[in-house]
């Protein structure tokens, strides 16, 4: 039996990509909302901010960052947080998300979403940082589960237990990337449905759907391909468990024409409609 989603759903959205700017404004595609990569708009001006403003005038947006590095042992970047807050004041996003990961220590940025060990030490480190970010931004932070290829020997709990505990300690919310759950489940041999079933439903703000590269022995999260059947099935399961959560189709590389993504987004609508109707009946 599905739960009623605790947050109003924005419906079905796409990641905003520069190659689609003019087509979005000219064509008014059947997309309910857009997710913007925060760092792409932390610039002085020009085309990026012009199109962000124009698209925001017509669609709801959410901000999705890649550089918060909430799990890093380096101090929080206060200048970055101030820039994020200023961008949020400009585009009034429905929420601000980033990833449960670390992206570098010291002054360096690896530009990758490095997984954390799931330990009490990491919880004790990350939870106050989430609270500090929430205070700095003046809003609840939404954190996404990342794909991972390694597990740490020190991990003393599952990823979903770790996420749930962060929610409990900080009141943060979750961006559940269904593809990432699938990728990590294949790489580490856990049941992806157990991951989803264990999450605190009230905290799940958004879903991500994406594609990956299946190498048989392991799976690489590429976000450069259509959603595969197994991830569609897992999406249906997430809908049954968590209700009509705002859904975002994310493509980061090999970006196809907008029309192609809109067609794939229609599939998400169909899966959601069918699943939720069946669950309600």
């Amino acid at each position, binding site marked *: 039996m599905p739960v009623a989603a605790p947050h109003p759903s924005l419906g079905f959205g796409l990641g905003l990509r520069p190659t689609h700017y003019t087509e979005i404004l000219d064509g008014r595609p059947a997309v309910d909302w857009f997710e913007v990569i925060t760092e792409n708009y932390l610039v002085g001006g020009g085309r990026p901010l012009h199109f962000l403003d124009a698209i925001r005038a017509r669609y709801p947006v959410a901000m999705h960052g890649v550089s918060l590095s909430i799990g890093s042992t380096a101090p929080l970047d206060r200048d970055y947080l101030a820039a994020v807050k200023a961008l949020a004041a400009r585009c009034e996003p429905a929420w601000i998300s980033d990833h449960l990961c670390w992206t570098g*220590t010291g002054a360096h940025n690896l530009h990758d979403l490095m997984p954390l060990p799931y330990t009490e030490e990491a919880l004790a480190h990350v939870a106050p940082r989430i609270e500090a970010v929430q205070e700095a931004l003046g809003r609840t932070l939404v954190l996404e589960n990342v794909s991972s290829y390694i597990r740490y020997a020190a991990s003393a709990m599952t990823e979903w237990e770790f996420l749930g505990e962060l929610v409990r300690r900080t009141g943060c919310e979750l961006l559940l990337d269904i593809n990432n759950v699938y990728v990590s489940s294949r790489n580490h041999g856990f049941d992806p449905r157990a991951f989803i079933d264990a999450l605190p439903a009230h905290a799940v703000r958004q879903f991500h759907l994406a594609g990956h590269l299946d190498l048989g022995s392991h799976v690489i999260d590429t976000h450069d391909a259509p959603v595969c059947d197994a991830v569609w099935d897992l999406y249906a399961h997430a809908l049954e468990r968590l209700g009509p959560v705002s859904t975002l189709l994310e493509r980061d590389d090999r970006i196809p024409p907008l029309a192609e993504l809109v067609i794939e987004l229609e599939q998400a609508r169909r899966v959601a409609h069918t699943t939720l109707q069946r669950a309600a009946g």
Partner: protein
Amino acid sequence: MNLARLQSLAQHHLLSGGDIPTELAQAIASPAGERWSIYVEAYRLRLTDALATQYPALVVRCGRAAFTELAAAFIRGHPSNHRSIRDYGAELADFVRGDHATAEQRLRGELARFEWLLAAAFDAADIAATRVEDLAAIAPHEWPTLCFAPVPSLQRFDTITNAVAAWREIRRGLEIDPVAGPALEPAASVIEPIPWLIWRPRWESEFRSLPTGEAAALDRLLAGTPFATLCGELADSHGEQAPLQAAAWLKGWLTEGLLLRV
């Protein structure tokens, strides 16, 4: 091993490469070598892709394989300190040129610098430039101290090779045949440096060369010299025509949207 030590070890290995340290391998429960190498490889690929995106003409000039080698060498010595990967690679122009530059290395260095400046102008801050008609509002007593600053997108630089011609040729060649690309003309040095401007009138970056006299005057103005002082300085080279010449240049710069009154 605590979290700080784990992250320090992992980052050091990603940045420096080589064999995975025993301490790090022991911290990873999965088949460490195979799975960890995904992160090692992804780091190099991601930064190489970022450089190729930032320097598309340089990729063509070098050839894809040579560019990949160049990027690998650059990445080894230049970890990213930027929150946006789009800001990575500013030092590539100097790196390409090297200390003992051949004509081709000098051209590639200038090509890289040109592409970097184009990108910098692309998303520079939006500030309304001073317009020609704004001059009408300037009171006579203000003219002696009238100064200008560059709009945020404005970039001034000189070339000593045919790098900009090479850039044009590459762009044109790619438009005609994206697969085959252009035929590349040899690198050539010029006797006198060629001054260039890059700026962004609206959404796209533009550029043009400018005569050396105009470049020198603009450089003086951008360095904070009052316009009236500039007119006086030009008397040596332009005689009685100095104020007219200075006014003509100023009108042109304001029409192009290059300046802000300060």
